[in-house]
């Protein structure tokens, strides 16, 4: 994804979630930044956001295919491309919460990598009186996913930036950790290998 000549790190983020959870609002709120400025969502750089997170500049390319959820066969295609995922549900909609889990499963299937950076986002906390999914439930699911969790309100623009920042941090951690885990894995395999050799030897002796 990285382009030559651009010093920035480039990350491709994919926003997932059931229809009606406000994921398009979340995306737009983040890329729109200044509310007074009219944002045209149909232009080519509509979902590119240059930003600085933890002192490091980066270019975020956000993919949100709101409105295309019914084209089911395409989801996996989107999932293949992302470096990080925002899985979004509405705290006022239990079903969307259940769907979140499905999205996570699908990512696992497509990526075959349970460490792919994901953040679970419970949106619409402005609708506190209509809440159907408790914060605890959200946190528990995130725990199950082994990912970060945040509740947001795209309408009130609360925690929107944070959600994206956390995800970018996760991606960075993941990328740094990659080399280490690789070595770790190899050593694990070596151990396993030797244990097998030992066992088979033992068996032969018997």
């Amino acid at each position, binding site marked *: 994804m990285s382009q030559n000549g651009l010093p920035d790190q480039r990350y491709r983020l994919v926003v997932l979630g059931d*229809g*009606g959870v406000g994921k*398009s*609002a979340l995306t*737009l709120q983040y890329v*729109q930044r200044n509310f007074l400025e*009219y*944002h*045209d*969502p*149909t*232009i*080519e*750089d*509509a*979902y*590119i956001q240059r930003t600085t997170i933890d002192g490091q500049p980066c270019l975020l*390319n956000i*993919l*949100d*295919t*709101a*409105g*295309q959820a*019914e*084209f*089911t*066969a*395409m989801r*996996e*295609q*989107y999932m*293949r*491309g992302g470096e990080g995922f925002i899985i979004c549900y509405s705290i006022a909609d239990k079903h969307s919460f259940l769907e979140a889990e499905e999205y996570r*499963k699908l990512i*696992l*299937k*497509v*990526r*075959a*990598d*349970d*460490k792919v950076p994901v953040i679970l986002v419970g949106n619409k906390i402005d609708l506190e009186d209509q809440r159907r999914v408790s914060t605890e439930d959200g946190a528990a699911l995130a725990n199950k996913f082994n990912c970060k969790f945040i509740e947001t309100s795209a309408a009130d623009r609360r925690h929107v930036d944070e959600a994206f920042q956390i995800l970018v941090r996760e991606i960075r951690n993941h990328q740094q950790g*990659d080399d280490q*885990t*690789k070595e*770790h*894995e*190899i050593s*694990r*395999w*070596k151990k*396993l*290998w030797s*244990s*097998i*050799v030992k*066992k*088979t030897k033992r*068996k032969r002796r018997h």
Partner: protein
Amino acid sequence: MAPQLVRTLSAQFTDTFLKRSESSLNSMVDLRCISKYPWRFGEVNFKQPTWRYWGEEKCPGAIYTVYLKKVRYHSPSKSIINVSGGESDDDISHLEWETVRVRFIKAGSLEKLVGSLASEVGELESTYVNVFLATYRTFASPKQVLNLLLERYDELRNPNSPMREAMRDQNRKTLRQSIHVWLDQYPEDFQEPPNYPCLTQLESFTSRVMPDSELDQKVHRKGDLIRRSAKGGPHCSNAAGSTLKCSPLINQLLSTSTMPTAPEFNVKSPPSASNGKGYHHPQYHYTNLIPSRHPSAGNLTTTNHGIIPPYSDFLEIPETIFAQQLTRMDYELFKRVIPHQCLGSVWSRRDKGRDRDCVSVVATVEQFNAVCYRVISAILMEPEAKSSARAKIISKWVDIAQELRVLKNFSSLKAIISGLQTNPVYRLKKAWSHLPRDKLETFEELARIFSEDNNALAQRELLVREGTARFADTVGENDHHLQKVLQKHSENSRAISYGTIPYLGTFLTDLTMIDTAIPDTTEGLINFDKRRKEFEVLAQIKLLQGAAKAYHIDGQPRFSQWWDSVLVLDEREAFELSCQIEPNLNSGISGGGSAASKDNKYKRKANSLGGFHRKNDSIASTGSSSASSQLTGEHAEQQPSMCQSASSSDILSQSDPMPDHQQSRNGARSKSHSALSSASSNSSLPSMDASLASSGNNTTSKSEPLGASTPLKGSSASTKSLGDHGSESKATSRSMSKTSVASSGSATDSPYRTSEFYIIRVSIEEAGPETEGVIMYKSIMIGNHEKTKEVIRSAMMKHGLEGSPENYTLSQVLPDKELLIPEKANVYYAISTQHDLNFTLREKSEDLNTVGGTVSRDSLGLGGEGTPRGSRRPPRDNSKARRKLLGLVL
């Protein structure tokens, strides 16, 4: 960038359109107005030099944006002057330019918005009319708008009004024109059976106020059509046909999704050995979004029976025909798309169950998914096939996609590209590695069109350039293959012009985003600027719909019958099947040299064993099994696993809403079942070994936690082996041995059991060193009168064993023990149907009753949850194989 594109697009469209609309009788007021005022199309272009933003103007109930526009008057052309008089330019004086004040309503009350249909001088604001009519449903009902129009008309008839007579005339004319446009473009607004309140109101109004006028006649004429079309008459007008409900073709298309009503046709005799493509099945399903309300839909297809037999095989259909027929289906749906049903507030905010509000969009989406799933299914349907055969199918789809590109059918093109990129297909590295290089390049070329980079810029630009062009001609620098194809086409049939069918999803996303980004109201007034922005997108759809009329493709019953009859796997089935074809070696690697050589090694070995199945003794096992699950009318998703969803003939007869002739074929089906299960009688490696293999591979590429790698683990408590790799015998990767007992429920839900006979799978316990832990299952059918000896004999034959059946014993492998079948038993009754029908054939000699999990599977602490039945394989072989695998991996 995009606004300019839109404008260019509109200008292009309009040109082509004007040419077309002259010959056609369709009223295209909106399109003409776009050409007249291209700058007003949607949002005002602030950058245009002749326009200057002046400010906002507010009055009660409305906010206007005011611009100053510089109007340049062109001098008469020089040549004319020279010819006519020879005078120099300076002799003619004329006004070069002047500044005009133009205002647009930015936001307003409904009354003001309706009032704005007429300009300040009472003329029809033709762009405005179109924006208004395309979008008003987001803020008002047809009834409200009609009331306001008619009230205003009445006001203007009042001679006591302060307005001058001429002005009132002009304003009334404008209102009449607006109603004309409304009736022409959106007749579905008046489609309100049974009472048609708006239509009735309009009819009585025109009869009263302007009897026998042009409008009055039109209202009555249209009214008749609308009422008639609602009765479902087959010859409804094009206009009223846009309601989708009465279109026979769409009924036909939709009927394929209403399972019980769609008739079964062309159940073929089992394919011959030469024609092993057996995924041809009478039924399919895909997620049905539209409730079935076409009970009569089946008639159409049944009448098509006979004469030319439908295509029996995917590869048999020429790709040009395939692409054309897809385009025909897409066109029929696309022309019926009601643009305002795509609006974000309609489409993305719709509640579940309110699909009726956007049925025309839903139909398009369904067709898209239907194509996708057919791509996936066609590729996976034959688990037995070699990777090269599978590559052939992929290659065929690429060819079809290329044809679709030439036809400019971006909807099905994207569907095929997406289908090829879905996980179950994409992960088949081996199949892809057999794809010829040029096909792969073509595929990548086509996939580039739909790159999501820069907000799908590539696709948008292509649409702008080719939207109304007569044929595809945009060739990127790297699109070598398209160049070639276009060249070929230009030699043959350049004379044919094509329409364009866009991928609707991009528009839907745009509209959803616009809906989110721009508020509905500003300062308590309806934000009309938002509607202008939405109209930019809607107009593109409309213009492309017009352009699509250039398609002239006749339907081909042979194709549509094939299309309807093809079996379609659902997502879960597809994934599980895919994992059986190429067990998960993790996405990162494989495909490479090491994996391939490993394969060859084992292939050779397997061949030397001579025990592996050849393709021709099997018929797309899973294919037919899930076919029957479709027949039961159940959504396979509800079923725990693919194999479980497969059904036996007793299930078949249970499912009641089935056409008679279907039931009568149960016998035939049972036969195919036996074939089916013999197909699944291949070798399977203990799952543990495979999980080792797969996770082992991980280390070479990407970090992967141990054991989390096999896809089976999570979802597949009940995955069964269909042993699909026989002919390829990729021993290393064969992991799909049955992993659990979960599926062993009642006798009815197993694919291997039917009412009069069972299909059992028999493995052979051999001490021979050459087997190395490879367990080969052969399926055999046992009837209700077969004795142990006979069963053993047929199992021996299957396994190519010689000798006397007396020297062998047969035991059923149960989760925790083995059940020895007594020598003189009737096997049919002796076996335990509570469990899976897996058996071991063992030479009598020594301790036959060694039972139990002696295997070292657990000692490894790996894949423990995978196989509860370690007893099937000799431990020694196991470890050997494992070592071998590890040796290859590490």
